[in-house]
């Protein structure tokens, strides 16, 4: 009986097999397969479920202290080069396997409810399984090359899923933007991988790290070049994990169905960048410049995300910017040389952010009953309010999620975020200050979301406001189709069990998983890095822990209090207080730091203009010369006739002349 680690290759292959089967069915027997909704969903859920069982077996084995398993085969070779592929199971990979399969499984169950009325139900499940497979392949990749392969594949799945509702212009643009921005990051990643391979002759993580140091010591690679290569590789994680300035795709990606936002754009794929940086620790750690760069980028990102989230009126966009901010925290941890803390935040964040997104999906689903299938209306918090009365499960879990992300002990977010801040305090006090203040903003904007959505009175039936919002989105004139036909409900309802159950399940780890990483006895730390965890536990002192923890809890409470005053008790009109007095700040935040505009002007328009002028050159100059030559040679119709009828003779003549010329030339050259 082979051990779970040896069977780990099955974990990505099972969902892939399911997805391929259904995909082939869809293309060959479209109608039949589209009608088999439940059987298909059941098949794909069981594939992912089996992968989950296997993942937990692998994790259990790792918890029991099994070492890393690596299996490689020769994938491509030429000369003495061989490119190897295979899989690698270690503690880091096992944690990610368990995490990804768990959330994928819950999101699939949830999707059964959320997508129940969508005509693309089967296609949606196929994409989900395909994504799960790619993501699982990514986490068990043994080398950079294979990481790159799956990196691209998860990007493709994201492209397909963001553009899932392809009749919507917004979705189509967002999908393309996501792919292209990610390709910009991959450009750096590819060059970095190539460069590291040139410098070290290897794609393996540890090998690159050690050989790079040897190469620097022997003088064959200069430190500057090595740093440059590290930064190039880091461009990949910057794009995938939505770090400034390549974060612009993530908020737009919310055009995809909400379960996707939860699975791909909050819990798993966007965390792949953080995961890769964790994998690359052996390469990065010897370079303090690189570490500093990563930490600074992380800090800019966390401030940027949180500041923009302050003014968002779209529930999903608010959560999206919050994700950007939280990813910044994880990156900050990586830059502080604390990969365990970063990974721990990745895990806790995955649980509570997936729950928050699924909760927002539940809200949107409920709102659609009232305002129709128009994302501009169904996701806008100005039309929500008071939903707690009708949606007890959703509101309770959302509330737990808000507490968790705000860092209130003993919920998950507290432990992980506090560990990151503690590390930052030791490494870069200035960056710690930014992270610390942002923790307050986080608590504020999350509770702002909560109060606007679930408390107060319901505003969904305000048709004047609806028309106003539609007009603002440029959709005022047209009828919004599907939802218009049947009569709307008066107020929203709680979602069915398929959607409520995953929320409830996710609430458990959101509360408890943080206890696995308490600083005086971090079970998580012992799994990933026993040596460091033992050291941390040994040096742990309440005297150091309490002041820092107390400070971050305090600032969170301040944030929550402001939110309560402003949005629950209505004692404070922030709109008038801030927007009125500092219109520039408000405009800066509402326009998302103007980054989208800069991108559009500089890169989108710029590349279009460049491409158009190259085409001009091609058709006018290059082809012009050709046509001119043709014209001169042929002269008139006479010439053409000569050419066609006398071709053979013409040839012979030229050939003869040419040979003589060549022979003469030869004689001259010797």
């Amino acid at each position: 009986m082979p051990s779970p680690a040896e069977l780990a290759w099955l974990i990505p292959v099972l969902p892939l097999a399911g997805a391929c089967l259904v995909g082939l069915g869809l293309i060959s027997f479209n109608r039949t397969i589209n009608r088999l909704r439940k059987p298909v969903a059941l098949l794909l859920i069981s594939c992912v479920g089996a992968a989950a069982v296997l993942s937990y077996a692998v994790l259990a084995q790792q918890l029991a202290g099994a070492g890393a398993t690596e299996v490689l085969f020769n994938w491509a070779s030429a000369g003495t080069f061989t490119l190897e592929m295979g899989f690698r199971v270690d503690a880091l990979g096992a944690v990610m396997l368990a995490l990804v399969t768990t959330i994928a499984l819950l999101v699939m169950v949830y999707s059964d409810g959320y997508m129940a009325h969508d005509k693309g139900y089967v296609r949606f499940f196929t994409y989900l399984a395909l994504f799960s497979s790619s993501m699982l392949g990514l986490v068990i990749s043994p080398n950079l090359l294979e990481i790159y392969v799956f990196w691209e594949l998860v990007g493709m799945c994201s492209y397909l899923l963001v553009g899932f509702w392809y009749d919507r212009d917004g979705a189509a643009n967002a999908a393309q933007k996501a792919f292209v921005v990610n390709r910009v990051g991959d450009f750096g990643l590819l060059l970095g991988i190539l460069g590291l391979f040139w410098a070290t002759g290897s794609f393996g993580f540890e090998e690159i790290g050690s050989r790079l140091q040897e190469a620097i010591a022997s003088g064959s690679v200069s430190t500057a070049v090595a740093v440059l290569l590290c930064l190039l590789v880091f461009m990949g994680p910057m794009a995938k994990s939505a770090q400034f300035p390549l974060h612009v795709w993530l908020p737009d990606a919310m055009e995809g169905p909400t379960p996707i936002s939860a699975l791909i754009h909050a819990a798993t794929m966007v965390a792949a960048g953080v995961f890769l940086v964790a994998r690359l620790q052996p390469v990065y750690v010897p370079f303090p410049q690189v570490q500093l760069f990563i930490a600074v980028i992380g800090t800019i990102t966390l401030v940027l995300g949180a500041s923009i989230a302050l003014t968002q009126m779209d529930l999903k966009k608010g959560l999206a910017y919050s994700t950007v901010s939280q990813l910044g925290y994880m990156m900050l941890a990586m830059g502080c040389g604390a990969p365990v803390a970063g990974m721990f935040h990745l895990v806790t964040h995955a649980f509570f952010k997936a729950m928050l997104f699924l909760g927002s999906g539940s809200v949107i689903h409920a709102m659609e009953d009232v305002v129709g299938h128009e994302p501009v209306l169904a996701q806008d918090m100005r039309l929500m309010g008071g939903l707690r009365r009708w949606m007890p499960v959703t509101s309770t879990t959302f509330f737990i999620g808000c507490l968790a992300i705000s860092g209130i002990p003993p919920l998950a977010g507290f432990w992980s975020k506090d560990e990151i801040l503690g590390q930052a305090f030791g490494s870069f006090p200035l960056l710690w200050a930014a992270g610390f203040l942002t923790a307050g903003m986080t608590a504020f904007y999350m509770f702002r979301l909560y109060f606007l959505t679930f408390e107060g009175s319901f505003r969904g039936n305000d048709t004047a406001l609806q028309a106003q919002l539609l007009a603002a989105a440029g959709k005022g004139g047209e009828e919004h189709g599907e939802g218009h036909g049947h009569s709307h409900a008066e107020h929203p309802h709680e979602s069915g069990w398929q959607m409520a159950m995953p929320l409830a399940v996710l609430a458990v780890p959101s509360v408890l998983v943080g206890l696995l990483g308490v600083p005086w006895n971090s079970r998580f730390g012992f799994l990933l890095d026993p040596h460091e965890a033992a050291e941390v536990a040994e040096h742990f002192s309440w005297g150091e822990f309490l002041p820092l923890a107390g400070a971050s809890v305090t600032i969170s409470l301040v944030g929550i209090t402001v939110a309560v005053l402003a949005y629950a008790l209505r004692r404070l009109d922030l709109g008038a207080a801030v927007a009125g007095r500092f219109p520039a700040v408000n405009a800066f935040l509402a326009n998302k730091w103007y980054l989208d505009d800069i991108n559009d002007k500089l890169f989108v328009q710029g590349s279009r203009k460049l491409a158009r002028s190259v085409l001009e050159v091609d058709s006018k100059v290059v082809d012009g010369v050709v046509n001119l030559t043709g014209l001169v040679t042929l002269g008139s119709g006479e010439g053409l006739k000569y050419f066609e009828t006398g071709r053979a003779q013409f040839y012979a003549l030229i050939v003869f002349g040419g040979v003589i010329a060549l022979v003469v030339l030869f004689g001259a050259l010797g």
Partner: protein
Amino acid sequence: MPLDFAVSLATATAQASGTAFPWLSASILFPIAAALCIPFVPDKGEGKQVRWFALGVALTTFLLTVGGYLNGYDPSNPNLQLVEKVSWLPDLGLAWSVGADGISMPLILLTSFITALAVLAAWPVSFKPRLFYFLLLAMDGGQIAVFAVQDMLLFFLAWELELLPVYLLLAIWGGKKRQYAATKFILYTAGSSLFILLAGLAMAFYGGHTSFDYTDLMAKGFSVKFQLLAYAGLLIAFGVKLPIVPLHTWLPDAHGEATAPVHMLLAGILLKMGGYALLRFNCQILPDAHAVFAPLLVVLGVVNIIYAALTSFAQRNLKRKIAYSSISHMGFVLIGIGSFSALGSSGAMLQMISHGLIGASLFFLVGATYDRTHTLQLDEMGGVGQKMRKMFALWTVCSLASLALPGMSGFVSELMVFVGFATDEAYTLPFRVVITGLAAIGVILTPIYLLSMLREIFYGKEKAELVAHTHLVDAEPREIYIIGCLLVPIIGIGLYPRLMTDTYRASMEQLVGLDSRAVQALNAPTGSAALIRQAPLRAPGLG
């Protein structure tokens, strides 16, 4: 030097000449002979019977090439195999001499495979069907001959012979500007053929005895100056075919006017003739000149990638867009050929095969889409995905293959070129950095133009005008089958590249060894050349 290589080749030839069945001659002559029988096939005039005949012939040809591969070809042997040699016109020194090594064999298989699918793609052709299928089958034989013949004169004949069908296929079945496109094509290609003939004759008459045989040519030991001259001429000739910017302007016109099956052949096979000939003549017969010219190939490759990608992005005509994307992809072939590493050259070869498959699939889809929308202007399309969902899915898969998504063949070949070139010790580090960096820009540009193309055709709201005036039916089984057939090797190679690379690996390594020795024989570069090439530190390409 080439001499010992030629000797080993000659012995191998002698040993292999006992092959029982003439697989290669059969694959060349059978489709041509069968094509000549087409006038006698009973048909009511709409091509309903002729097409079955043509399909049968194309499939048989495919089976013949596969038979040759399975029965007489050993992938681990780097030398010429399946050799047949019959003296034809001894006075002219002309012999019927065919054979296949790793450089020919995959392309021969590709040719017969794509042609069979092209015949299936030509199913709806009803205008002069006899002539149409006749030309397709004649091209099949002619193109296999280009890859299989081992005699310069025969090569020239085959190269020219294949022009005529393409000219007619363009001029008779093409679009509105077909005359212009066909004339441009024939002038361009005929003009470039002169260089082949010139160089070929010069090479044949060089030295003491006259011979057109590749093996003899290799053994002649041309002086470096002669090699440089011949190389330059051949580069122009093959550069038109591949094409290399700025010799490319025939291609968008020809591709823009061709019908789908012709399109598949143009993109799938015709362009590969240029790449094949570069490998066969410029790299194998003129290795010393190749050592000098290779940096130029690399630079031209990068120009191809970026220039054509940008042009493609600005194109509003669907066919021309894809045509330019072909040019862009051929840039990787040039870089691979210009690298002196086994991995890079192997990648160039794989890129030819991969683009043959992906290009054929995309061009087929263009044709299928045009049949429905009756327009190629992207401005007039939009939201088509709602009525044609399967077509949408096929387009998406093929576009993703074209933008080198991992798991498909394009990714592997581009990766091999990248890694091969980046680790190629024959070039200086700054040169490699600049070239690799620029080529990687293609990684960003390709998805931009391909995805915006998908966006404009399929996504968004349906264009009311288009829906009102056209009948948008979804993909039929025949179309899905054709794309499916092309996707099997595309994905197969993507998942496990050795399926393909192992068939030509031995020959390619031998070729790279030859060129690497030529590089090492060069004097250490001085002046501005030292910025590009460096004195070899160790055996390049093998380390």
